[in-house]
């Protein structure tokens, strides 16, 4: 149907360009541009107050941008298109906001009605199955733990089979077990090809779940695959371990070998900064062997996404109030 065409088309699920939102003279986010493809799980990473929630609300047509433009689920963002866009997306806010005096089933019935979901009964049963909440359908939401409420929130966001699903900090305030539950559910969505826009301030969450991440701190600091961001920001390192201390390491670890810098790390271990580990590693190995050294190991060491994140946020002048 209409939704199928949207998903099959080449147009991305989200196109955001130079989007800015100010509240009076406070800037929530500024000049933000990125694209999200269909079927992608896109992580929107940033510290508290970075503007993540405001971005979700803006793309979700709850608040109007101050400037810039966006295309959400194929429809240009505008006040007039609000209802049309909302029909195609779903948003799980930071607080799932269930009606606590209603049962799980009754909460979902309301939203099935609001999205005009066809055959709501079957659909509700289906989404409850997806989040493993089918046996709790008759429970009052007020009686559920925070983790279970989050699952109901996810079920609610799935009801309308949205083109894009926005999840705002879906694991904030959850204990590790409940968080893992939610992570598993999101990983399941990814497998099923659901497009997810996931905001978080938790790095391991972004790294585990997302195809690509954007790092936001009012302005967008970086966008890319976690992998790309690492190499984009850091020179890779080679860690070389030899059987004995090298008599003349400076003769081996030279720029001709692709090594920019080297430091000893302990007795017979050396950390080399290299531009391209794929080129440097074999060269360094050959040079070591030629010099008669016994190589125990050569490994490429990668910076974690956390390093990238901290590096960016720390270097950002706006980070310090």
């Amino acid at each position, binding site marked *: 149907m209409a939704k199928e065409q949207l998903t099959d088309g080449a147009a991305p699920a989200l196109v955001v360009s130079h989007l800015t939102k100010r509240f009076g003279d406070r800037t929530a986010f500024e000049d933000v541009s990125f694209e999200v493809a269909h079927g992608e799980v896109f992580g929107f990473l940033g510290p508290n107050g970075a503007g993540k929630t405001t971005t979700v609300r803006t793309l979700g047509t*709850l608040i109007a941008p101050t400037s810039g433009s966006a295309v959400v689920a194929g429809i240009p963002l505008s006040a007039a298109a609000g209802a049309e866009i*909302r029909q195609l997306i779903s948003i799980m806010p930071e*607080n799932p906001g269930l009606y606590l*005096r209603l049962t799980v089933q009754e909460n979902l019935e309301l939203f099935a*009605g*609001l*999205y005009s979901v066809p055959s709501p009964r079957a659909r509700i049963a289906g989404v409850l199955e997806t989040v493993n909440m089918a046996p709790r359908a008759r429970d009052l939401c007020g009686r559920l733990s925070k983790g279970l409420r989050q699952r109901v929130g996810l079920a609610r966001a799935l009801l309308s089979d949205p083109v894009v699903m926005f999840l705002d900090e879906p694991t904030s305030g959850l204990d590790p077990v409940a968080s893992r539950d939610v992570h598993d559910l999101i990983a399941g969505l990814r497998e099923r090809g659901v497009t997810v826009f996931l905001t978080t301030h938790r790095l391991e969450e972004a790294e585990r779940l997302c195809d690509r991440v954007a790092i936001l701190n009012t302005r967008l600091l970086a966008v890319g695959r976690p992998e790309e961001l690492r190499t984009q920001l850091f020179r890779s390192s080679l860690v070389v371990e030899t059987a004995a201390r090298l008599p003349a390491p400076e003769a081996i670890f030279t720029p001709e070998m692709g090594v920019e810098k080297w430091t000893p790390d302990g007795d017979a271990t050396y950390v080399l900064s290299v531009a391209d580990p794929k080129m440097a590693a074999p060269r360094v190995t050959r040079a070591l062997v030629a010099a008669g050294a016994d190589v125990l190991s050569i490994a490429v060491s990668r910076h974690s996404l956390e390093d990238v994140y901290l590096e960016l946020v720390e270097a950002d002048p706006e980070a310090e109030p």
Partner: protein
Amino acid sequence: MIGLDVGRLAAVARKEAREYRRTPFIIGAMAVLPLIFMINPVITIFAIGATVKAATVSKAVGATFLVLLVVPAVIPASIAAYSVVGERDQGTLEPLLTTPVRRGEILIGKALVAAVPAVGIAYILFALAVILAHFFAGNPTVAATLTEGSHILAQVLFAPLLAIWSIGVGTAISARSSDVRVAQQLGTLASLPPLAVTALVSFQIVPLGVWTAVGFGLGLLVIDIAMWRVVLAMFDRERLITGSRAVKTTGVGPGDRVAPGEVRRIQA
């Protein structure tokens, strides 16, 4: 105008009715207030003897008439005053607004569920007063006055019109409030002014005839329409959501950016 979808409107109304049924204060108000407001009519019916002068009787009936109209004015005001700020308090307002639902559907769905029981109770109380008067009144003029055409017309017209005003003003106050109790008190107060119309009639400052009833009815209709235009204009998604910051206590204040070191602590 705004296209309304019956399915979405019904979904809102159904949810609203389910919530009210499980809200003690609403059930309590619906059960207790009508009893209180029947005290005056019962006294009028049973305590006025056969020998009391006609003028006194009609004064007493007038007061009864006023008291019965307080029900449709006051009950829905306090329910409507809860309707938006209550959702904001629970955190359900934002998820509701993320759906394709139109504001007209939210407002009408909520209004219907507040108005129907209030007007229903008002009509039942009036019918009850008429029946009691017919069979038990000590003075036959009581029943005769209560069942005058203009009195019945006024009850039938005024009850819904007063309820519509109350719900409108209650919703407007609710949309702007951050405190449920304050909203309910203000809402109840604001529901009272239109009762002045009925007071004019009850205290016989203006004699009640069919045409005065229709005239006052039209007057109420005009202020109802004006109030609902205001409500519709106020019910703007951005305003409702950003207005909620006053109540939210997530702990992220102005310029609250977490220093990089702190991120690690959050992680741990």
